[in-house]
């Protein structure tokens, strides 16, 4: 177990210079995630345009792994549809659970593979993705309800 596997240069760069950090006014999706192990908290804000992620930001506190993972996630899902984002989340979680994935599928996210060697830290890496999935579920459940209501009127 070498620390270099965990603290890759790219990860430390995202940690010290997080992309898309902050809040977003009037988001379509707003969701909070928490890691009860360490008390880390994270919020994700997504604004949609034409069914695609137009803007995404995250806000919160956490360790280098959870912060870097959230920062990378925001870069990766911008411009994607919710279905595409969900598929990416699925692949990312599969990678963290030990499946082998190619760089074509996950791009820069593959640098987080090294976290698998430190099992207690896997939750740190998946925190933002699990929150995103929950946010998308809630959004679709709510909008589903709205359109169902609209069609019944």
């Amino acid at each position, binding site marked *: *177990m070498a*620390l270099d596997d*965990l*603290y890759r240069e790219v990860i*430390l*760069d995202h*940690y*010290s210079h*997080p992309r898309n950090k902050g809040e977003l006014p009037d988001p379509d999706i707003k969701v909070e995630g928490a890691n009860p*192990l*360490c*008390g*880390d*908290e994270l919020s994700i804000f997504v604004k949609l345009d034409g069914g695609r992620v137009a803007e995404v930001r995250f806000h919160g*506190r*956490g*360790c*280098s*792994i959870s*912060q870097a993972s959230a920062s990378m996630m925001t870069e990766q899902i911008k411009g994607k549809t919710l279905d595409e984002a969900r598929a990416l989340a699925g692949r990312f979680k599969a990678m963290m659970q030990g499946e082998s994935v190619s760089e074509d599928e996950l791009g820069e996210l593959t640098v987080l593979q090294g976290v698998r060697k*430190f099992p207690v*830290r896997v939750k*740190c890496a998946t925190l933002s993705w699990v929150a995103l999935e929950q946010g998308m579920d809630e959004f679709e459940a709510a909008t589903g309800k709205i359109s169902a209501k609209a069609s019944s009127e």
Partner: protein
Amino acid sequence: MLAERVRADFPILQQRMNGKPLVYLDSAATSQKPRRVIDALVRYYEQYNANVHRGIYRIAEQATEAYEAARAKVAGFINAARPEEVVFTRSTTEAINLVAYAWGRANVGPGDEILLTEMEHHSNLVPWQMLAAERSARLLAVPFDEQGMLRIDEFDRLLSERTKLVALTQQSNVLGTINPVRELAAKAHRVGATVLVDGAQSVPHMPVDVRQLGVDFFAFSAHKMCGPTGAGALWARYELLDAMPPFHGGGEMIMLVHLDRSTYKDPPHKFEAGTPNIADCIVWGEAVDYLQEIGMAAIREHEMQLTHYAMHRLSEVPGLRLFGPESPQRRGGVLAFDLDVAHPHDVAQILDQDGIAVRAGHHCAQPLHRRLDVSATTRASLYLYNNEADVDALVAGLMGVRRLFAPKATRVWS
């Protein structure tokens, strides 16, 4: 130095981690065990393993005798008036829950108040939340100041005729703060309140005399004082235990059982339903002997000196903020801190590479961390076997954390 005399007693400290000596700085979570405690456990299972209080045969008598002798040793360790005032439980947490159920449900009612502190471990917080919700009682919490000292003025303000119970820790598991239990217990008794003290962090590290403290309930456990896990104790004045209804029902705690009713044994057996943790309670007695031979005053003195040294060395680490009282006289060897460049999980992970074991997180004290305005801290905690070399290794490790993170970041987590 005391540590140099006792280190050889602890087999685990002889092993190496990643080729480096194990630097164990997590005794506030659980202490390491000396060889004679480990041997006593093996001796019990190899030579006189039998159930207590029922067998007529030789080893059953031997086990019963050893079990009750351990109770007497544990009682003597905190200067209880008699062994029957010590109820064996499986942990400090269970001891506190015993009081919350058996005493709390009989004595706390609507409108009553339970006075806690903001530095309590979840185990001295959640049972009272559950009791308060069930009995429509109110919970109040005494805050602490910037030094981590309990706000006595706030304690005085919150204490009233409505206060039914004061529940507080003798030593904080995060700040290290040693609370003036004797003074607060006297004030609580003046308004007719009962006083429960969480002694999990104090009993292993300093001389404790429950009668001198003048409290009513005192909870603590074996595994933080060189004993095994799975054994704890509740001490209470005998009259108090005698007046309380039982906690768990079952075997061992009864005199006579009919289909529709039962009569109960006297304390402490009234509160020890089922086959107890015989082995670990017996072995706890061995840990008590070990600590008493060294002397609790000597252990306290050693830890105070080492805490003083550690505080001095940690102050050399740039960007490190240590929580808790500045004077080692007013605190135990529990050193929780914040390092500006790295999250506690990252700090602990990097230290682990050097064989240094520290704790990262909220240490079962989330309200305390909220008050400090941090989500987590890194905690190094000391015991009799720690020495200056352990502290030096910690400081060197923290400098390594800075080297990895500092060029890239300033205050990136909060």
